[in-house]
């Protein structure tokens, strides 16, 4: 049993680290945080440098970690420009892949996943957007909320209700996934500004009014969209865990930079040393559970409980280490990057399934084992 990643992946990690340190300059980080603009030029450079690839998902995972270590806002924005690609990779037709997936993976298009609604976040099956069959195709009406890449994406992988649920227990039936282009008539994305953190990411509220969706844009089987989205979440949550690990590692880096500038007597305080030990241990544990969950997902043997544990725990760690670091640095953190990482870290407990949802997934999977014992 080896805990080492293959050499190729470690080399990618080094390249990603160097790229982020070179390209995510202090000025750019502050600019995108202040203006909330989408870092499109850096996104293009990320593609040119070959960091976005589906050939070996480990490369994307360590790149996510290293990018977020330097700046979670820019890092996630650039890598998530292919958000949802796994959906087409696993369920798309050749035509859909040709039209949407391959141009996205080449950096020519940007994609987004549109599931959350004003009245349904954690409760995916509670969405009320409707997609109904018509003579010419499908008609979409609805309202999506907090959609990452919402105003910059060329197309969305969108979940809507195509049939009423057969029963209260089967609310997740009758949901269909469709590819919807942003520039189609009736699609109105509005950028949401004023986020606490991750301000380089584009977030939007989108309304869909009588949008005509061609039959060929339905992904997978009609009415089975819920399962597709859950499969996707199993993958995407591993990347969010990596985002958290990277953010936490970035906080440790900043703390070490701070300590390096202080007299040795400060570093020699055992209180400070214990804090460093706690932070390092938390990050190492979060990284290991993330890699274990990723190993399962990337070998097509996903363990939803483990994935949820990784996402929940790593997010908890990112926020916890920020708090510990502030105890050491105090007011001297004011105006520093540490403040920014504290703001950026919080979202990891909310998006792609809140920590509460992750706990529900974990406990349901664990409870199944009781039935097995019986």
């Amino acid at each position: 049993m080896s805990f080492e990643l293959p050499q190729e992946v470690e080399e990618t990690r080094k390249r990603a680290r160097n790229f982020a340190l070179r390209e995510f300059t202090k000025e750019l980080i502050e600019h995108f945080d202040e203006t909330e603009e989408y870092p499109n030029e850096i996104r293009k450079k990320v593609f040119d440098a070959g960091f976005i690839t589906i050939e070996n998902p480990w490369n994307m995972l360590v790149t996510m970690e290293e990018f977020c270590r330097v700046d979670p806002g820019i890092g996630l924005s650039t890598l998530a420009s292919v958000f949802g690609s796994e959906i087409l990779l696993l369920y798309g037709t050749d035509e859909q892949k040709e039209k949407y997936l391959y141009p996205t993976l080449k950096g020519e298009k940007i994609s987004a996943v549109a599931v959350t609604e004003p009245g349904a976040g954690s409760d995916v099956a509670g969405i009320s957007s409707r997609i109904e069959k018509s003579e010419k195709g499908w008609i979409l009406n609805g309202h999506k909320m907090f959609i990452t890449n919402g105003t910059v994406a060329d197309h969305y992988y969108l979940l809507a209700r195509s049939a009423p649920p057969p029963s209260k227990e089967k609310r997740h039936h009758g949901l269909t996934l469709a590819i919807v282009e942003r520039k189609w008539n009736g699609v109105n994305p509005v950028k949401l500004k004023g986020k606490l953190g991750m301000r380089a990411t584009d977030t939007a509220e989108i309304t869909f009014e009588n949008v005509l969706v061609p039959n060929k844009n339905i992904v997978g089987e009609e009415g089975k969209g819920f399962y597709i989205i859950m499969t996707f979440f199993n993958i995407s949550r591993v990347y969010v865990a990596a985002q958290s690990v990277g953010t936490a590692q970035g906080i440790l880096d900043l703390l070490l930079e701070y300590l390096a500038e202080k007299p040795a007597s400060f570093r020699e305080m055992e209180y400070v040393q214990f804090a460093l030990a706690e932070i390092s241990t938390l990050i190492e544990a979060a990284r290991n559970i993330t890699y274990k969950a990723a190993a399962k997902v990337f070998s097509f043997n996903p363990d939803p409980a483990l994935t949820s544990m990784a996402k929940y725990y790593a997010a908890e760690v990112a926020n916890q280490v920020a708090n510990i670091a502030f105890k050491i640095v105090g007011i001297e953190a004011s105006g520093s990057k540490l403040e920014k990482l504290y703001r950026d870290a919080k979202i990891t407990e909310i998006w792609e399934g809140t920590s509460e949802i992750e706990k529900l997934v974990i406990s349901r999977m664990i409870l199944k084992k009781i039935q097995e014992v019986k």
Partner: protein
Amino acid sequence: MASEEQKLLVSMIEQFAKEELENVAQKIEKEGISKDIRKRLAELGLLAATLPQSENGAGIDRSSFSLVLMTIAKYSASVAYFIYLQNTLVNEILFKAQKRKEEIAKIASGESTGTLVHDINLNFPLEIYIKGHELYGANNFVILPDADFHLVLARSEKTSYLVMANPVKIEKKKPLGFRAISFGFASYKQTIEEDRIILKDADNLLKSHIFDTSDQIAAIAIGMSESALEKAIEYSKERKAFESYLYEFQPISAVLSDMKGRIEEMKKALMLSEDTKDRILLKLNALELARSASRLALQIYGGYGYLEDLGIERYYRDSMYLTMLSSNYIKDIEIISKNIISPDAFKI
């Protein structure tokens, strides 16, 4: 327990805060504390709250002042902190030193603002010096650098002074929290006349003032916690997931109830703190409470809380910022350890 008189005071402050702060709290954060708000605070006696009535102050006792800060903080933590800062200057420093009565009057009336520039909460001393009568140096962490006057802690070879000064240069930065109150850099270079020296051996005196008013910081933190929790409970009764209200879910109900219990206990402790050690402990616990309550509120609100429109993310920023401004954890815990364990505690 609050007395009848204190209950009356709180009810008056609550009415003011509801009518004049609640609806404009977000605006205050964006535009700062206006002269009009300062005047209203002055009319209510809040800018010289603890100053004796014989000196044109409101003559409010210590625990009543804590209740005032706690109540204001529920509606605008920035305004509460501003009141705390101005009272520290007016009563804790200038009045006790029996210096600069004209500045006391100007602050009390809302005409002027003052700030305190020190390094008590930093891990290492600042480089602001006084040589002869020449003050020089800079500080990167000044609250309200655009205040009308600064009380600056400056060190000489043998002792330290608190002097009244005006910066030669200021640079404002966007702070993590309390965005209604400016924050940033200030540098000083001026000759200090005798009447501008407020305190000698200021380091120790200032330390005791600051640590001794820890209960007032605790009061602000408790007010913020209470407000964050109230908003979280309110939202849990509006928002549905899986066809049920959020509060109907056991884990959510449990954390909300647990937080309510912690806040109520902290409110009781606020009225009981007797010495500096108690007050520092109270401050540390109240700051931790504020951070937890803000994190909880943000979690309950989910994505909506992450946007500034609803004012929930503000609690998250403000609670950490208040911690940064008011507490150096290592120094705080050192004082407590030496007091409750042994003078040799926290040595290694």
